[in-house]
């Protein structure tokens, strides 16, 4: 054989399809959303259950008073979205762990997807189309600013 080196195709390392690493993103998301939810949910629990009259003070007027302020609309919207994605993603892990039969797993994933979509869409619509002073409602059930001025 002459002293010619055979030409080899470039790197010998195993070739993996270049696709996004979804499970890694899911792992990172659980931690990032968890950190945000900690603040969002602890403040939510404090304002609704501890400060003021706690549960006994929650009624339409209380919710309307909060959602009349954009900051609480955004706050609750963030909890809704982050907690639903975080929780549904966590449930996906749990389903994958225990539902070993393909049929069972697909059924449960389908139910999870439907529950997720219904609750996120409904909750988002409620937060944004909500009126704190619905016309025709008895004034004593509404927040005080509905009747003032």
């Amino acid at each position: 054989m002459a002293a010619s080196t055979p030409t080899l195709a470039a790197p010998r390392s195993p070739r993996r399809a270049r696709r996004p690493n979804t499970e890694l993103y899911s792992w990172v998301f659980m931690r990032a959303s968890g950190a945000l939810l900690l603040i969002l949910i602890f403040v939510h629990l404090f304002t609704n259950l501890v400060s003021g009259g706690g549960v006994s003070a929650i009624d339409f007027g209380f919710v309307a008073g909060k959602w009349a302020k954009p900051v609480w609309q955004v706050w609750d919207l963030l909890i809704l979205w982050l907690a639903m994605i975080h929780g549904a993603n966590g449930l996906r892990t749990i389903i994958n762990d225990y539902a070993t039969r393909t049929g069972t797993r697909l059924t449960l994933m389908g139910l999870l997807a439907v529950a997720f979509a219904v609750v996120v869409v409904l909750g988002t619509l409620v937060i944004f189309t909500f009126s704190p002073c619905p016309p025709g409602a008895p004034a004593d059930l509404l927040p005080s600013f509905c009747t003032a001025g």
Partner: protein
Amino acid sequence: MPEAPAGTLYRGREGMWSWVAHRVTGFLIFFFLLVHVLDTSLVRVSPEAYNAVIGTYKNPIMGLGEAGLVAAVVYHALNGVRVMLVDFWSRGTRYQRQMTWIVVALFVILMAGFLPVHLGNVFGGE
């Protein structure tokens, strides 16, 4: 010779039980959240409909259930921080057992602050 375990049950100690509790609480909170969004959506129906349903949250049995849910959220949140420390702090795995007990201690402190206020509202009456 290491001592043979008395049983065959896997005993993962603090690390295993904190994981079991994290999973159970995450599961419970998710289903509560579904219900919670549905009942809150009644504000869009009418003030009367919302007040009627939220009124049922104010009886003692629901009040205790809420206390349980708050406990689930508080544990899940604190242990979530522990999980992140195990993952990202260089000594996290070495101290995971101690951190479980710190989570338990913080949980007890937070619940000791919350329960008297909440149960006072539930059972205090007007």
